[in-house]
């Protein structure tokens, strides 16, 4: 099915605006097959938006996104759904179906897309839940889970169909250190053992450094820097150094654009 290229996903000259505010302005980016690629950047740079564009939950105003050589903008709904069966996505908030139990949430894609017997579905679901350490929580409802547990269940659901591409949107947020270590190793192990291509959007520079083969740093709608985590952490670029080392001063302003603090406090502005 694939085009055999090293790049599983290729993004060319991507332009996307939200209202009058440009998010991407000519973005070029490659996701290499079989690797873990991290997408990093300050808040509001459009990392999650990029994931939604790659999966065609959003449509760009200009540019092409090729997934395994296929321009996803040309796909009709049924072909898009066929392509999406190759994706697994972990949403920022887990996005578990609140009217289904943990077990049924993980079983949901299997029940929708396969004719497997209940016995086999049970076996697969318990295996995946065991991998994220929540086999014992199979009977709970999503409302009974903590944020971190919900995300681990969502991870089990994302991998239950054994996808080719796993997309993680902020997978490390809200995890305790033990869960974090296990999940980081799980991401890496799945990628290597199953030959999955993984895309991780994250702010956690340390965790990304341990798991990613390649990282992109986004800023101002473009790729500001790319390379292995080691290359980024030793980069001389002021922007890269500010982000990777969490420095307050640098080209990325901590404060959102605002009038003069003094004038606003003294009520001189409108």
């Amino acid at each position, binding site marked *: 099915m694939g085009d055999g290229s090293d790049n599983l996903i290729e993004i060319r000259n991507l332009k996307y605006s939200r209202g009058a505010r440009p998010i991407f302005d000519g973005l070029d980016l490659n996701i290499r097959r079989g690797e873990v690629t991290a997408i990093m950047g300050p808040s509001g740079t459009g990392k999650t938006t990029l994931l939604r564009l790659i999966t065609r939950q959003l449509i760009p105003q200009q540019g092409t996104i090729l997934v395994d050589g296929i321009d996803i903008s040309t796909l009709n709904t049924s072909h898009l*759904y066929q392509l999406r069966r190759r994706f697994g*996505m972990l949403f920022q908030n887990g996005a578990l179906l609140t009217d289904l139990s943990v077990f049924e949430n993980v079983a949901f894609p299997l029940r929708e897309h396969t004719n497997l017997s209940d016995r086999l579905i049970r076996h697969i679901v318990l295996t995946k839940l065991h991998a994220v350490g929540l086999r014992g929580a199979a009977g709970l409802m999503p409302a009974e889970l903590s944020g971190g547990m919900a995300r681990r269940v969502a991870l089990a659901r994302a991998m239950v169909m054994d996808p080719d591409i796993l997309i993680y949107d902020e997978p490390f947020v809200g995890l305790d250190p033990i869960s974090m270590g296990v999940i980081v190793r799980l991401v890496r192990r799945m990628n290597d053992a199953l030959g999955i291509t993984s895309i991780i959007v994250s702010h956690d520079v340390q965790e990304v450094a341990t798991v990613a083969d390649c990282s992109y740093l986004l800023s101002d709608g473009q790729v500001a820097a790319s390379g292995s985590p080691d290359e980024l952490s030793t980069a001389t670029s002021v922007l890269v150094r500010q982000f990777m080392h969490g420095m307050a001063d640098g080209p990325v302003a901590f404060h959102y654009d605002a009038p003069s603090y003094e004038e606003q406090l003294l009520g001189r502005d409108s």
Partner: protein
Amino acid sequence: MHRTAQDIYDSFVEFARTFGAFQLFFLRLLRHSPSMLTSRFGVVVGQVYNAGALSLVIVMVCGLFVGAVLALQAYSNMSRFNAEDWTGVAAALALLKELGPVMTAILFAGRAGTALTSEIGLMKATDQLSAMEMMAVNPVRRVVVPRFLGGVIAMPLLAAVFSAVGLFGAHLVGVELFQVDVGSFWQQIQLMVEPADVREGIYKSIVFGIAASLIAVWEGYNTVPTAEGVGRATTRTVVITAITVLVFDFMITAVLI
């Protein structure tokens, strides 16, 4: 002046766009309905339970009092002409042709319609619909269509229950309270209420069921995915359904009369 004209034009274009999208949405629901009824009937039955069985108490209580007040009014006015025996007929015709379907539809919008809108809206706000899209599951087919069908099936049944309980309420007031002869009360109903009157009520309850369910799922599916957006969508469901039901009621009555 020019600006006002432009605003009116923009509003008209926006209305036409929304109305077109609404019709396409309805066609999408109709397209997926047969397969949902055949392959996932259990899911639809679950939604009939949510929209219908869970609305039974409120529908029965309201039906009882509406029937009772109709009998009160009918008895008090008919007694001026010594026509108390017609109390049952007046209540029955009003219930079967008008108040049964209309009141049930408005109660349905308040109880089940708001639940449908807020449930789908919250699913959207918490990315559950996006997650389904990403699992290659069509959320319109899997989430919206069963809820729509559940409402469409439940509404005529609820209207029938409303009218039946309403007649019982009328009986309590007319026969038990005002001592109208029980034989005359029910015989007059049997003689004067024709199958066409019952059919009118059935037609109306089916149309209102489609309208109320469609508005509820449309508002939920197109809600702005925030707490405020879900709240506004829920309010709109009740208001738009009430107006639509009353307009359709007039149109259907005008056609059938």
